[in-house]
């Protein structure tokens, strides 16, 4: 029962019981993990739209033919971002064995998206402009119903019959991670008994052109933290985690995968498109997420970095890691999922959270593709070529440093069956 908001957030353990992922590596978590382990990038030629006029011609595109196709019996107005989101959410709920018929009313959806159904809107607008110029008929406006930022999150809630709190945030590259952070706090305060948290975005002309206008896109698949890095690679997809309070998960016989131990978000308040060069805001987010998890920096075993591959981001992020971890930053294994599936913008933080969790569960850190010497100014222990075996890894950090200076950090820890002690 919702109660009057009173008292500080109880220190209640929040666990992850389900995962879902849709990316250029495939339509489920298994194919995502297999691709991550392989170290072979899924960034390459794509045909989501005509990019012949651009300086770059690669992205990490989801193979639509491999997906489940449009759900039968549902209204046809689902955008790609909606479809990715629904697939990822269904997978997470199924994995968790959560009976939404029983508890959908107390389940919430906490989502992130940076462009919603933009690619469909672009097609609408193109036809609209053609019609205005006397060529062709004015398109029907119905496709715009799924245009907005909240469309993927709402589509998930509608598809699963959710009755609890539903919100979408749009914090650019930090959206997915912040959505998960919001969900963790919501579970702690009892706002919902279960939360589907994540994000979704599809490739679209707007962001592809926009990042190219900022000269922030690499012609080659991105090479985070490497000396020759020249920008980011865009990707698309969705990812979700299912979060519950530990006691409820155990009571219904679910098996917790990991503990969502800590979260924090800050803002550089510095510049719209460039991160603070010293990574101060990012360092603060990491420190506060660790404090939230009641962990010392020394207890983190590896980092899934934001690692876009832009000259400025990677350097700032390295400085942030050194600010928090001190000299130990040079020994901490660091990887960037973006090197394999691109930058998913609104869902990046969520997909990378899933990647981080998978690494923890497997006891190994997925690699980035080999090739390209690390930047000598960035002395991090990059995981390259092959997975790094870390069977005793217990605690991991995932970071997101967004456009507009929004920073988010998530800490996940292994769940120990013999009784979890925070």
């Amino acid at each position, binding site marked *: 029962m919702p109660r009057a908001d009173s008292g500080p957030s109880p220190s209640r353990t929040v666990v992850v019981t389900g995962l879902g992922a849709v990316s250029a590596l495939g339509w489920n978590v298994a194919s995502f993990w297999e691709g991550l382990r392989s170290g072979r990038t899924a960034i390459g030629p794509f045909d989501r739209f005509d990019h012949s006029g651009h300086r770059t011609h690669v992205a990490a595109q989801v193979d639509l033919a491999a997906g489940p196709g449009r759900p039968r019996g549902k209204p046809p107005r689902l955008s790609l971002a909606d479809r990715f989101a629904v697939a990822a959410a269904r997978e997470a709920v199924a994995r968790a064995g959560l009976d939404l018929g029983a508890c959908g009313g107390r389940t919430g959806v906490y989502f992130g998206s940076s462009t919603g159904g933009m690619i469909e809107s672009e097609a609408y607008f193109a036809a609209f402009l053609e019609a205005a110029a006397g060529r062709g008929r004015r398109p029907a406006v119905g496709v715009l119903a799924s245009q907005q930022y909240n469309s993927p999150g709402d589509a998930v809630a509608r598809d699963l019959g959710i009755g609890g709190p539903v919100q979408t945030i749009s914090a650019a590259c930090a959206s997915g991670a912040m959505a998960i952070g919001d969900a963790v706090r919501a579970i702690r305060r009892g706002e919902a008994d279960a939360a589907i948290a994540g994000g979704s975005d599809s490739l679209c002309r707007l962001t592809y052109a926009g990042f190219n*206008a*900022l*000269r922030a896109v690499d012609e080659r698949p991105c090479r985070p933290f490497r000396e020759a890095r020249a920008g980011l690679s865009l990707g698309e997809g969705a990812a979700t985690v299912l979060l519950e309070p530990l006691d409820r998960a155990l009571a219904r016989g679910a098996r917790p995968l990991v503990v969502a131990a800590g979260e924090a978000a800050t803002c550089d308040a510095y510049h719209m498109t*460039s991160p603070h060069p010293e990574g101060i805001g990012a360092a603060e987010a990491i420190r506060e997420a660790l404090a939230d998890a009641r962990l010392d920096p020394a207890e983190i075993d590896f980092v899934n970095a934001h690692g876009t591959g832009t000259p400025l981001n990677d350097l700032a992020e390295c400085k942030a890691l050194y600010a928090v971890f001190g000299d130990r930053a040079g020994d901490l294994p660091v990887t960037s999922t973006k090197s394999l599936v691109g930058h998913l913008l609104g869902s990046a933080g969520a997909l990378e959270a899933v990647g981080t969790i998978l690494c923890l569960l497997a006891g190994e850190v997925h690699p980035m593709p080999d090739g390209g010497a690390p930047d000598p100014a960035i002395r991090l222990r990059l995981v390259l070529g092959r997975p790094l075996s870390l069977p005793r890894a217990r605690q991991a950090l995932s970071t997101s440093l967004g456009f507009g200076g929004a920073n988010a950090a998530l800490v996940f820890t292994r769940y120990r069956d013999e009784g979890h002690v925070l």
Partner: protein
Amino acid sequence: MSKTPALRSRIKHLLVDALHLEGLSPSDIADDAPLFGEGLGLDSVDALELVVALEKEFKVPIQSHEVGKEAFASVSALAAFIEGRLDAVGNADATS
């Protein structure tokens, strides 16, 4: 070179228009005043916005590694850079 004053004037107008430098008249911008950091105090995003405007106006491509560097230091430097580009692509008439 007789083309250069006209080219500098066009560049100054472009700066004011493309970067929304309201309250500033093109003639207020000195040929050799620094554009970035001090002087006009433009930043990296201004440089990129300027590049789009320059490419559109003069129909010359500008490589990413050239953006914001020596060629962009002042109006004079930009004019010399653009003129060099135009000569290279054989568009000598574009600046008349």
